[in-house]
């Protein structure tokens, strides 16, 4: 399930809605991304997340479908917000549920790595020196590379 929304989300309620009543689930991994006070060296006040309506949903749905193909997931969820967000605000939620814990962890990491590098969102930070577009990070590309098909990570479920 994927959602792109301006509104905040409730982590506990989302996990419950996704997993309640499914007794084949042994483990649920989640990751929540928050707006940090410090990005690099300049303290930031707030940020605005721009996105590409239409393509965003397609990109998230494809990323989720690929995770479902690679790991034996019982359920999965991606929520990504857009609009103006302040320090401490939730930006993104990824939840994966599987019979085994490693499949849940690995697929949640995979979803986050793909989101960071593939989903059409852009962060504009409000800094002391005015608004500034966040630069893409090489470390995110490196994180993505570990999921290349040759690594055989798809079989890593315990």
């Amino acid at each position, binding site marked *: 399930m994927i959602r792109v929304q301006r509104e905040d989300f409730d982590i506990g309620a989302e996990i419950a809605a996704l997993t309640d009543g499914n007794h084949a689930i042994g483990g649920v991994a989640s990751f929540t991304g928050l707006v940090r006070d410090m990005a690099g060296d300049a303290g930031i006040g707030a940020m605005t997340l721009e996105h590409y309506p239409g393509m965003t949903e397609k990109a998230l749905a494809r990323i989720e479908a690929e995770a479902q193909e690679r790991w034996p997931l019982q359920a999965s969820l991606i929520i990504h917000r857009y609009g103006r967000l302040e320090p401490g605000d939730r930006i*993104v939620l990824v939840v994966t549920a599987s019979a085994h814990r490693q499949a849940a962890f690995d697929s949640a990491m995979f979803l986050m790595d793909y989101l960071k590098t593939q989903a059409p969102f852009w962060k504009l930070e409000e800094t002391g020196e005015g608004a500034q577009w966040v630069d893409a990070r090489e470390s995110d590309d490196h994180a993505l590379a570990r999921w290349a098909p040759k690594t055989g990570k798809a079989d890593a479920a315990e």
Partner: protein
Amino acid sequence: MKLLYFAWVRQKIGTAEEEVTPPAEVTDVAGLLDWLKARGPGYAEALKDARVVKVAVNQEYVRPDHPLKPGDEVAIFPPVTGG
């Protein structure tokens, strides 16, 4: 052809979207970027390094040699920074 710009590409070009009809010799994404760069200083600045900007045609990432046709929705934007 509908063009969409995002983030600093949008700011440098000065508009979020526009409808264009490139000349017949523009047949692929690389050709479109070259043609756009000649439209003004904002375009030239936004698109000066073709290896940096990303292009999606009909909401799918494409490479520079991707062919274009009249009804396409072409989006041009910087590397993404969500998550």
